[in-house]
């Protein structure tokens, strides 16, 4: 599996690199990005919610026509392909995304100062910068890559992706620790304000509330660690599965379902193979919240007068009211408890909260640079009564308004809320039924092997199902319509896994 491990291209020849750097900087002053990612994604998400995945991908492509595809494009594309059960395509997109993440991780380890707010590249408008991805998105990318591998029956590769999440989390933790110190020191030196609570009119409660503050950090999720536990368990490595479940419990405390995973681990591993499949249902709901640019007026004291400059900051806006069912019904008899495990919504809020000091520091530095130019124009204009200069000053102010908008880029096709259910069920055909606000929905699955992961995604009018791959390949499964008791997911075709997805544990 060389893809996952290969990170190259970033460290190519020095000349080419310098040229790129120069081109980028030239571009900064000229082509200010007028892109509003929130507006751009609107149609894509709408199509997705209506079940038109192909159309959704077309819209996404039309918004990313350039040769250079960024991390965000691959994030979204991979998720849309996954929703359509196109696992190999999805994996290809996400591997491209992972190459960016790996390069970032490499920089974070070898040259972290490049990623800290003081770095030169950080002094340009955030949205013009190459998209680096939020920390939680990078971890979720690897988590979903692992889910793709599980769906394709490649458990060993899933283990590689899972192991990468551990390493990535350690790198992020170290970098953020450095960042907090640096932002604090830099802000103090410049006398800049970095507390968003001092930003007049900022909706503080959206990112500063008990639920957000209860998270340990913005990037560790109980889902990633629970999945790690599940993967290690399926590969017969209980000593690695244990910390996975243990961390999931720490990150999402007081959930009996999560506690059971740890307490019952030994028993499950040593249980004889009684023809039962250990099935993990991952239930995602809604879409990740949007970032929207809002302007706040920031007075900059200069040469004894005040220059008021509009400064844009990102604000977190929920886009859906995600619904999670309380339980999942299996074949009209068995009820599986559904336990919330991870809220991307909260993680995104926490990420913004943790990023705000850096965003504010960078905004203050940029605004001050603009303020200098503006002041000088105004000043000369007043002194010489030069109409042309005064107009130039006005144009500059207007220019600031237009160009100064906050970075709205964030991975939108991630679910807003994620829950899990787990059960040991017999091999064979099963009907899974969910209660949703739009009515009852059900899907038929044919499961085999000893472990399986079934990912369900609830959107406003849609239920997407991502079962193990073979079921899809032979059936061409369609998302089910709201309210309608849906057609069997595969039109009755066999959906068995062709091979067992893991090395079997010996019954002890």
């Amino acid at each position, binding site marked *: 599996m060389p893809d996952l491990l290969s990170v190259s291209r970033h*460290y190519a020849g*020095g000349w080419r690199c310098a040229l790129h750097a120069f081109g980028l900087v030239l571009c900064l002053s000229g082509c200010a990005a007028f892109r509003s990612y929130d507006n751009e994604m609107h149609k894509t998400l709408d199509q997705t919610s209506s079940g038109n995945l192909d159309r959704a991908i077309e819209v996404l492509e039309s918004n990313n026509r350039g040769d250079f595809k960024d991390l965000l494009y691959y994030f979204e594309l991979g998720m849309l392909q996954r929703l359509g059960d196109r696992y190999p395509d999805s994996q290809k997109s996400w591997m491209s995304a992972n190459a960016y993440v790996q390069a970032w991780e490499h920089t974070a380890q070898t040259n972290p100062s490049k990623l800290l707010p003081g770095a030169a590249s950080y002094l340009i408008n955030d949205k013009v910068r190459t998209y680096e991805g939020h920390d939680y998105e990078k971890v979720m990318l690897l988590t979903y890559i692992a889910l793709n591998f599980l769906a394709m029956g490649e458990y060993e590769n899933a283990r590689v992706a899972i192991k990468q999440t551990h390493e990535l989390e350690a790198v992020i933790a170290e970098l953020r620790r450095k960042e907090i110190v640096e932002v604090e020191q830099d802000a103090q030196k410049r006398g800049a304000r970095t507390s968003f609570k001092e930003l007049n009119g900022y909706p503080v409660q959206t990112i500063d509330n008990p639920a957000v503050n209860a998270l340990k950090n913005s990037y560790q999720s109980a889902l990633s660690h629970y999945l790690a536990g599940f993967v290690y368990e399926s590969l017969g490595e209980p000593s690695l599965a244990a910390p996975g479940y243990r961390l999931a419990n720490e990150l999402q405390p007081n959930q009996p379902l999560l506690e059971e995973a740890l307490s019952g681990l030994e028993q499950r591993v040593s249980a004889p193979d009684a023809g039962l499949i250990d099935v993990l249902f991952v239930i995602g709901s809604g879409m990740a919240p949007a970032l929207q640019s809002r302007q706040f007026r920031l007075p900059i004291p200069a040469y004894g007068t005040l220059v008021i400059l509009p400064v844009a900051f990102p604000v977190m806006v929920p886009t859906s009211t995600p619904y999670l069912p309380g339980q999942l019904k299996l074949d009209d008899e068995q009820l599986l408890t559904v336990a919330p495990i991870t809220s991307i919504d909260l993680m995104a809020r926490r990420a913004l909260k943790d990023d705000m000091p850096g965003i504010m520091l960078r905004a203050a530095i940029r605004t001050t640079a603009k303020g200098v130019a503006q002041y000088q124009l105004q000043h000369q204009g007043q002194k010489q009564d030069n109409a042309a200069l005064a107009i130039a000053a006005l144009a500059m102010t207007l220019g600031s308004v237009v160009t100064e908008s906050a970075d709205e880029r964030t991975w939108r096709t991630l679910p807003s809320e994620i829950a899990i259910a787990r059960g040991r069920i017999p091999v064979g055909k099963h009907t899974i039924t969910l209660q949703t606000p739009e009515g009852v929905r059900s899907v038929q699955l044919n499961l085999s092997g000893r472990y399986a992961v079934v990912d369900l995604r609830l959107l406003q009018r849609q239920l997407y199902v991502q079962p193990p791959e073979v079921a899809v390949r032979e059936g061409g499964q369609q998302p089910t319509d709201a309210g309608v008791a849906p057609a069997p997911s595969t039109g009755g075709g066999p959906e068995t896994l062709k091979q067992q997805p893991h090395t079997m544990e010996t019954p002890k």
Partner: protein
Amino acid sequence: MIDLSRTRRLALLPLFAAVALAAGCAQEQTRYGDQRSIETVTNQFSSTDLQMIAESMTRSMLQSSAIVSGNLPIVTVQEVKNKTSEYIDTRAVTDSIRSELQKSGKVRFAVDAAAMQQQVEEVERQQGEYYDKEQTAEKGRMVGAQYRMEGNIISIVKQAKDIRDVYYKFNLQLWNVRNGLLEWSDEKEIRKTTTKG
């Protein structure tokens, strides 16, 4: 808030940025290191910890009476339970211990639970008609272990503003399968402290 006079030079920013970015593109170098050197990049479980534990456990076990007086005792390796919140591959530790013991020539190992499936499959496969009956591995000839090795690793992690302290305790036991007696047990403790700054 921000003193403008200090930030005049920011007008030259694009130039600075270009230079800085170009400088950041310097070529990297990768070299081989000493695989047995002390690794203290972070205070998470490290290669040095793994090697120290394996070495100390092996040397201690070689002095146990079960091994000294036994005639090439047969041991099977069981799980070392990971009771920490860290992803420590304890099988990598027991694998190291097993190879060191095997190399010492004082212990033999019987197939363990994790490898049983492959073992059984191979024996089954040799029962097939394509194999020379004289030389195939017959069923019912595997030798059971006299001792089983198991253990656990715990950690205590304490973190304050500028200090992170982690303590590991690795415990390994050698049990007599026939009579259930504990023949040998030893511990290795490791403490690591990281201070910030």
